C-alpha cells in the first residue's frame, strides 16, 4: 500500500513562547467606601433580608415557635400549618416556583437577586463594613498590608476578626434556631450548655459564614455559584444591566482644566478608576458585561458621584439595556417575559390552592402481610388491613372509620380511633363480608376516616378486598 505523502504546513512562527501557570494566585480585592442611591436601596433590602433571617425564629404562634423545622420528630411547623415528610412534594413545588420567579426577575432586571438579596453578598457587605471601620478604607488597608505589622494594626485586626466572629456566631445561632427552639437555644448557648449536635452545627455554620463572607467572598460567585453561569441564557437585549456608556465615555483619559476636552478628543470618562476600586468582584465595568458582575450598582453610585463633582451629567455608568445603549428603545413587555409571568402566576395559584385545600390528615393503608383472606366460616370472608392515621393538626381528634365497596360489608374492629395532635397511629382493622355479596375475587373498597368533631377533616383511601378463588 502506498502512503499518501503528507507534510506539516503549520506556519512556522518566530514568536517566542513561554510557559505559564494555568492557575493564578488570587488577587485580594480592597473594596473602596462609597455612597449613593443604589447603595441605600441595597442597605434597605439587605436589612429586610437580615431582619427576616434573624427575626423569623423568634416569632411565636399559638404558644409555639412560628417557624420550626423539627427534624427529630419529622414535623415542619410554619405558623398554623404542620408539614410532614409526606408533604415534601410541596417543598419541591415551592422550589420550582421560586426558580421560575428568579427567571422572571432575571429576564426583566438581570441579577437583581445577586446585588440586593443574596445572602452571600448581604453578609459580605457586612464583613466589608467591619473591615473598614477597624482597618480603614481601601488605600489605608493597601498601604498597611504592604508594611510590617504594628501593634496598633494588630489590635485593629483582632477587633475586625472579633466582629466577624460575632456576626458569624449570631448567624449560626439564628440558623440553628430554625431547627431547635431558639428561645431555649439562646440561653443554653449563653450558659455553655449546648448539646453535641447543636454545638457542631453552630460551629459549622459559624465557620462557613466566617469563611464565606470574610475570606471567599466573590470567589463563591465567580467559581461556585451556578446562577452566575446560567443567567446569561436568560438575558436578552431588553434586560436591565449595568453598563458603561462607551459612546459617551471614550476616549477616556485624564484632562486638565486649561485645555479643551473636545480638542483633545476625549470623552466623558476621566479614567479615575473609581468604578473599579468600589467593585466587590474586582472587575472593570468598562470592559462590558461580564460573568463576574453581580449587579450591585457600586460602580453606578461611584461614577455618578464623580460626574456630579466635576460638573458632568450623571449616568456614564448606569442601569440600562443593550437596546438602549445602541440608541434603540427598551421593550419591557415581550413574549418571553409574559410567558414566564403567566407560568409563575398559574403555578402560584395552583400552589396556593393546594396549601389552602390541604386537609391535616394523612391515611395510609397496608393489606395485612402473609395472608390474603381468612375464611371465618363457610359464609364469611375476612380481610385485615393496617391503617396508618397521621393527625397533622394541632389538636387531638377522634376519628370514625367506615368501609364501602361490597354490600353489607362490616368493620369488625371498633370503628372509632383516637389520634393525639401531631401523632401517627397504627390501627389494624378487620373487614368481613358475606360470600353471597362478594361479586369478584378482588374488589375495590374504600376506607373513610372522618374526624368526629370536624367532619371537614377526612380522608378516603382505596384498597382491595380479596376473596377465595371459588368466587368468580
Amino acid at each position, binding site marked *: 500500500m502506498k502512503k499518501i505523502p503528507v507534510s506539516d504546513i503549520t506556519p512556522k512562527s518566530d514568536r517566542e513562547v513561554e510557559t505559564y501557570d494555568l*492557575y493564578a494566585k488570587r488577587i485580594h480585592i480592597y473594596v473602596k467606601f462609597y455612597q449613593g442611591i443604589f447603595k441605600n436601596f441595597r442597605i434597605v433590602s439587605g436589612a429586610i433580608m437580615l431582619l427576616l433571617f434573624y427575626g423569623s425564629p423568634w416569632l411565636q404562634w399559638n404558644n409555639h415557635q412560628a417557624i420550626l423545622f423539627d427534624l427529630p420528630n419529622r414535623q415542619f411547623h410554619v405558623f398554623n400549618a404542620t408539614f410532614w415528610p409526606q408533604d415534601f412534594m410541596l417543598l419541591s413545588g415551592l422550589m420550582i416556583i421560586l426558580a421560575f420567579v428568579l427567571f422572571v426577575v432575571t429576564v426583566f432586571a438581570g441579577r437583581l437577586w445577586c446585588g440586593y438579596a443574596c445572602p452571600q453578598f448581604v453578609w459580605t457587605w457586612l464583613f466589608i463594613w467591619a473591615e473598614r471601620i477597624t482597618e480603614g478604607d481601601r488605600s489605608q488597608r493597601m498601604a498597611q498590608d504592604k508594611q510590617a505589622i504594628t501593634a496598633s494594626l494588630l489590635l485593629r485586626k483582632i477587633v475586625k476578626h472579633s466582629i466577624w466572629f460575632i456576626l458569624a456566631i449570631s448567624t449560626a445561632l439564628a440558623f440553628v434556631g430554625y431547627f431547635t427552639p431558639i428561645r431555649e437555644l439562646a440561653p443554653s448557648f449563653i450558659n455553655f450548655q449546648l448539646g453535641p449536635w447543636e454545638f457542631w452545627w453552630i460551629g459549622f455554620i459559624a465557620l462557613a459564614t466566617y469563611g464565606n463572607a470574610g475570606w471567599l467572598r466573590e470567589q463563591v460567585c465567580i*467559581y461556585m455559584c451556578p446562577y452566575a453561569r446560567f443567567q446569561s441564557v436568560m438575558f436578552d437585549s431588553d434586560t436591565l444591566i449595568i453598563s458603561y456608556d462607551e459612546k459617551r465615555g471614550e476616549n477616556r483619559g485624564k484632562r486638565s482644566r486649561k485645555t479643551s476636552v473636545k480638542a483633545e478628543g476625549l470623552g466623558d470618562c476621566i479614567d479615575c478608576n473609581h468604578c473599579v476600586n468600589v467593585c466587590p468582584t474586582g472587575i472593570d465595568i468598562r470592559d462590558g458585561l461580564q460573568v463576574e458582575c453581580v449587579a450591585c450598582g457600586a460602580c453606578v453610585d461611584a461614577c455618578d458621584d464623580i460626574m456630579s463633582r466635576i460638573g458632568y451629567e450623571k449616568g456614564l455608568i448606569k442601569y440600562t439595556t443593550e437596546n438602549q445603549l445602541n440608541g434603540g428603545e427598551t421593550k419591557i413587555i415581550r413574549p418571553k417575559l409574559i410567558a414566564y409571568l403567566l407560568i409563575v402566576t398559574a403555578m402560584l395559584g395552583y400552589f396556593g390552592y393546594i396549601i389552602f385545600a390541604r386537609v391535616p390528615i394523612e391515611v395510609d393503608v397496608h393489606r395485612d402481610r402473609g395472608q390474603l383472606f381468612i375464611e371465618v366460616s363457610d359464609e364469611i370472608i375476612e380481610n385485615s388491613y393496617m391503617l396508618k392515621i397521621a393527625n397533622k393538626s394541632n389538636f387531638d381528634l377522634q376519628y370514625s372509620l367506615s368501609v364501602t365497596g361490597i354490600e353489607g360489608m362490616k368493620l369488625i374492629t371498633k370503628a372509632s380511633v383516637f389520634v393525639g395532635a401531631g401523632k401517627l397511629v397504627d390501627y389494624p382493622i378487620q373487614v368481613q363480608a358475606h360470600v353471597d355479596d362478594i361479586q369478584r375475587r378482588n374488589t375495590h373498597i374504600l376506607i373513610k376516616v372522618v374526624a368526629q368533631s370536624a367532619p371537614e377533616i377526612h380522608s378516603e383511601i382505596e384498597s382491595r378486598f380479596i376473596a377465595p378463588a371459588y368466587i368468580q
Partner: protein
Amino acid sequence: MSPFWSAWISIITLAVIFGCSALLLMTRKSEKFKDATEATTGHVFDGIEELDNPLPMWWFQLFVGTVIFGLIYLVLYPGLGNYKGVLGWTSVNQWEEEIQHADNVYAPLFARYAALSAEDLLKDENRAGLLMGQRLYSNSCSVCHGTAATGAYGFPNLTDTDWLYGGSAETIKETIANGRTGSMPAWGSVLGESGVRDMTSYVLSLSGTTDLDAEAIARAKPKFQALCIACHGSDGTGTQALGAPNLTDKVWLYGSTYEKIAHTIRTGRAGSMPAHKDLLSENKINLIAGYVYSLSNKDK
C-alpha cells in the same frame, strides 16, 4: 483475600491516586506567546483569540488536598488489599460498638419490664410494656398470626379464649420460647374412607351441629372412644398438655366444613410454631407474651 488480589487492588488504588496527581501536575502549565497581551495567550485562529483566564490557585490546592486526604485515609483505614489500617477499624467492630451502645441504652428499659409478669404488664398504668410488646409482635409474629393477632388458616387466633396449649402467661411464654409441634396422625388407612366420613359426622356433632346422619354418629362413637380419646379426651374437649384441640367448640384451625374436617381426619395435620428463644431475647419474649396475654384478657 489472596496475596494476588491484595496486590492487584493496592496497585490499582495507588496508581489511580498517583496518576491523577501526575495528570494534575502535567496539565498545570501551558505555553503562550511572550508578546501576547495580559488577557490573552496570543493564540489566534480565524480571528478568535484564546483568552488567558486562569483558575484560582485554591482550586489547584483543593485537588492536592484530596490527594493528601486519600493517602492519609489509606494509611488509617483498610483500603489497600489486606492492609488493616493503623486505626484497626472494621465494619464488624463498628457494628459491635453500635450494638453495645444500643444494649447499654435499652438494657435498663427492658430490665424494668423483665421483672413484670404478663399479668403485671396488663396492670401497668401507662401500658408502655404492652406497646413495646405490640411492636415486637408486629415484627416477629404478625406474618403468621396477622397484625390483629386473629390468626389465619393453620395459624391460631390469639385473641379468643380457646388455647391449644393453654392461655396462662407462663404457657404463652413457653410456647414462644420453645415453639410447638402439633401432630394429628392420619387415620385414613385405619378407619377407611367410610370410617372417616362417619367420624367426621361424629366430630361435628360434638360441637352441636345438628341434621347429621345419626347412624353414622352411632357407628363412629366406639371408634372415637378407642382411637381418639388418648389425645382429645373421652368428651372431646382436648388436652392442653398435648396440644390436642377441643372439638366441642366452634373454633377450627383448619376449617369447619365437613370436607375440611374429613380431610384433617384422613390425612392428619402437622402444625408448627417455631422456637424463638434463639431469635429474641428473654426480655423481648416476656413483653410479647404480655401483649399476647392481654389480647384475650382485655377486661382484667
